[in-house]
């Protein structure tokens, strides 16, 4: 996993509560053998005017010009702003993979569905929960700007707006530590690589037939 560093990124806003994981990545794409490549099908039903199937050349499909991620400059968005209970529904980890594959690194919403929230950290996506009033304010600022950007500073747990306002957010210490150091479950275990190697040495000496 990549280390999470402070960055300043474009914000795309989708003004709906209860966006479910089937909206984020529709079920027909789960047959894939990959965990990458889901970005073109992120929000597929909203993003395209014609229905999509896996394996299709999606660049040939008709884009919905109204949908935010199809508009300039939001194709480059790194931050997604949404309403409460984001990513409810099925447990598919593909929802996180799709967001990240598109380029989203941070989601800001008043609240999240549990499984999605957990899955996010496993993959290096930061879900920030802010007070509904603050999210409201961000929505109106995004609306009134061409190219709205926020700075996300995980170390100090701050979201900074263009006018310098700082909004602080809560995050579990351990999860913060893992994101800052780029540690997923595998990364965490790899911190014990020395122990594993030491274990192997005595193990194969004792059980040489397994070597």
């Amino acid at each position, binding site marked *: 996993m990549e280390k999470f560093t402070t960055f300043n990124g474009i914000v795309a806003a989708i003004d709906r509560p209860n966006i479910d994981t089937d909206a984020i990545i529709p079920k027909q794409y789960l047959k894939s053998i*990959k965990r990458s490549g889901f970005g073109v099908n992120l929000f597929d039903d909203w993003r395209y005017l014609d229905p999509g199937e896996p394996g299709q050349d999606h660049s040939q499909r008709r884009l919905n010009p109204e949908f935010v991620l199809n508009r300039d400059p939001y194709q480059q968005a790194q931050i997604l702003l949404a309403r409460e209970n984001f990513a409810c529904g099925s447990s598919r980890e593909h929802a996180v993979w799709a967001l990240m594959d598109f380029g989203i690194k941070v989601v800001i919403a008043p609240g999240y569905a549990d499984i999605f929230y957990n899955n996010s950290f496993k993959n290096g996506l930061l879900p920030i929960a802010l007070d509904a009033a603050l999210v409201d304010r961000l929505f109106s600022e995004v609306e009134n700007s061409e190219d709205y950007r926020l700075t996300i500073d995980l170390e100090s747990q701050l979201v900074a707006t263009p006018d310098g306002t700082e909004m602080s957010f809560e995050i579990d210490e351990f999860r913060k530590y893992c994101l800052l150091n780029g540690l997923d*479950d595998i990364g965490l275990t790899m911190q014990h690589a020395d122990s594993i190697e030491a274990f192997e040495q005595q193990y194969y000496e004792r059980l040489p037939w397994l070597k």
Partner: protein
Amino acid sequence: MAGKTLYDKIWDLHQVRRDDDGTSLLYIDRHLVHEVTSPQAFEGLEIAQRPLWRKRSILAVPDHNVPTTGLEYGITDPVAKLQVDTLDANCDKYALTEFKMGDQRQGIVHVIGPEQGATLPGMTVVCGDSHTSTHGAFAALAFGIGTSEVEHVMATQCLIQKKSKNMRVTVQGSVADGVTAKDIVLHIIGEIGTAGGTGCTIEFAGEAITSLSMEGRMTVCNMTIEAGARAGLIACDQTTLDYIEGRPFAPRGEIWQQAVEFWRDLHSDADAVFDREVVIEAADIAPQVTWGTSPEMVCSVNSRIPDPAQEADPIKAGGMQKALEYMGLEANTAFDEVAVDKIFIGSCTNSRIEDLRAAASVVKGRKLAANIKLAMVVPGSGLIKQQAEDEGLDRIFVDAGFEWREPGCSMCLGMNADRLEPGERCASTSNRNFEGRQGQGGRTHLVSPAMAAAAAVTGHFIDVRELQE
């Protein structure tokens, strides 16, 4: 201090470290890989640019999606083909040992591991498949894992685990003639229920277990997962050693001797304490047939189909009623009145040479009953298929009207073209009788290979012993 259970011994041997909250890092010896649960793991490694920790721990084989007929045409379903091609490409890329389609050693992952001597006593064995419990027959701690864990093992050779409880199921005395390992394990599941082993590793013990061949022991451990336990274990003894000696991946010469010495200690100490103990009388076990949509809905072929009206617990009775409706059965019917449409002999539960021999001995000199639409035998591996042909078993099946197929998972889960049609009734030697498991609307009855053969030649369920006299 009390002695250690077999599970404790294997666990301790593999524990790399332990955190205060009881989570441990467990070292994994053998990682079996198939096409369905590995592609995202390989890709995850690539995205993170992580190397594989120990390539030689991996043995890969496509099985779930491979067709069992017309191999010369390749795989026609594009999704299945892509999964198999992806496994091939990943194994080539990392130079992993893989038995590809067309290789005689190819077959069901849980059949070929033991067959090759890749499963050894005292090992930890994992695979992205719940029936990894099969390998516990070798006194190996073996259990299924998810795709993110597959990736974790590939990258670190370890898993983050919490220890489970110790449970022992003792089957004492010996079973009657004609009663097989499948009947023993179905009976156990009927007794303890599909949640009976939840949170436990089950060790199987007692004379009825230790007198089983390795094939029979694998059948028992295979279905541990249907009893709710992720892993089943049987102590190592001379039968185990005799089976392993001389197999391709097994140690040889001096090192074999050293291994054998170590393996002889792979049993629970006499004074070990189990969290749960269940004792079953072998003499009580008759040939079994499942009648419902869960493996615990099982009874002796000689009893009548249970009546929900006799069940005191209303929730259970409701479940029974629903199952009977799905299965298209009337309560209190005798099994020999239940006609069968299809016969499936195969799966990681019952596709080994001994299973094929047992079925063939019943079929020999007989023909499929007129109402049987399709009867198929799917050997567990190319090597088993060869051996069966050398023994002439294929002729016995074909002469009776069976189809003799190429190895794979086949109609166990209906992922390839072998499926039940809605409403069709199947006598199957596989392990799961869930709704739709063998095809939408299909009705599965789990039985032993001999019982499946008996259903094939009579057209209905019958105590195979009536044909054996």
